């Protein structure tokens, strides 16, 4: 009976184990998201540059990161780098891992957002004496932001879920604590239901928010 009542009670009794992991997952997600945004906006703009080399750098980053599994990237940061003499704390491995990974996806969203703004906008700005960067900042990015917002929110949702990969390298996140607790006493039934609901509690509001943004966008277009 994987779902016997006493197993549910045991989960409730040890709620602190799950709370600890939940907080780590939230911290990982916030910092990872921040890094992903910074990297994404930077590389996204590179992707729309006129300069060929800059566009090439964008392609290398995006294609390399998007076409290798996150698990391998995390595993490399955790077990590969130490052989090169760099031992990062596991929390940093997590932030770097999901941040760089989702940064590549954010870069594509940002690039698409910028490209969706008619070229005339930029030409008009330049003809009015704006520099390339100030045209970006005052004319293009504010308009691109509206287009990019809903897919960005979806990226945030996947980022939160992907922090669970950290469980593989003893990352102290929610999934790690759930695995550890459930495999010790084998009360896996309620454990994973509760863990799933905790992830749902983080992701569902975000996803709903994204949908609302999308609807608003349709109206304004």
């Amino acid at each position: 009976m994987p779902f016997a009542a006493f197993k549910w009670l045991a989960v409730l009794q040890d709620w602190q184990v799950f709370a600890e992991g939940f907080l780590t997952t939230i911290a990982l997600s916030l910092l990872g998201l921040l890094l992903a945004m910074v990297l994404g906006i930077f590389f996204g703009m590179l992707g729309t540059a006129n300069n060929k080399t800059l566009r090439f750098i964008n392609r290398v980053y995006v294609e390399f990161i998007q076409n290798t599994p996150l698990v391998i990237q995390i595993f490399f940061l955790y077990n590969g780098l130490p052989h090169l003499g760099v031992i990062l704390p596991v929390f940093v491995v997590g932030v770097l891992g999901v941040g760089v990974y989702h940064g590549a996806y954010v870069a594509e969203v940002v690039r698409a957002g910028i490209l969706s703004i008619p070229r005339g906008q930029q030409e008009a700005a330049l003809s009015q004496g704006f520099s390339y960067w100030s045209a970006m900042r005052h004319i293009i990015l504010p308009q691109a932001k509206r287009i990019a917002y809903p897919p960005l929110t979806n990226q945030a949702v996947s980022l939160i879920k992907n922090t669970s990969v950290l469980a593989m390298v003893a990352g102290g996140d929610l999934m790690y604590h759930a695995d550890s607790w459930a495999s010790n006493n084998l009360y896996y039934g309620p454990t994973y239901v509760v863990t799933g609901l905790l992830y749902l509690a983080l992701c569902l509001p975000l996803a709903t928010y994204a949908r609302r943004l999308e609807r608003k966008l349709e109206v304004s277009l």
Partner: protein
Amino acid sequence: MKKIFGLMVSLLVLTAFVVTGCGTSAPTTASKDGVPADIKAIKDRGVLKIGVKVDVPKFGFKDPKTDKVEGFEIDLAKVIAKKILGDENKIDVQAVTAKTRGPLLDNGEVDLVIATFTITEERKKSYNFSDPYFTDGVALMVKKNAGITSLKDLDGKKIGVAQSATSKKALADEATKQGVKVSFLEFGTYPEIKTALDSGRIDCFSVDGAILFGYLDDSTVILADRYTPQEYGVASKKSNENLAKLVNETIADMKKSGELDKMITKWGIK
């Protein structure tokens, strides 16, 4: 926001209903010919399904050359198959890990788990365990050049253990007794722990001694100390009580006749 909250609550309630609904299983009753239902199911099927380890040399190990799973625990499975089906070759072995062995028993994918499964009071609430067929101790593997010779030297260091293994508690108790402070990192599989030891993420790899020997290489050494005896038992689904009884009788017979000791000597694991 209110809507989302309402949705979450209804989801929670729904899961609670679903899981309590499927949580009960029919008790096993003897059929007409006197053979209990759980054993009859195996007889009708004609094969005994066993969950074993495939990465623990001498216990349950898949030889990459022959692709055959062999070891002490497979031999034990054969004896039980002979007792139920009259033919020791009528077994169907399936690889399990520390994490999958519980669920596989619950959903009936395997009849028995014989996979270096340590008996604990907590686990007995979920599964039937036979009397122990083997007793091992938790051992420590460290890097040769680390200069670590005992648990005391591990003060302030990190120890890698396997999820679902009882070594963490055993070592934590022993460390407290000796006044040593250690921290634990848990990994899903043994190779992951060895990789973490190689990369310097952890200072010590600790699981049951027998398992540890499978990962010994030129750069590592296993310390002589053994902590807290770990008793391995054959596990079955909680409702399959008659099967559990039969397994227990088989093991008791093997102990009495000396067959179990012979097997242990054959595999060289004592």
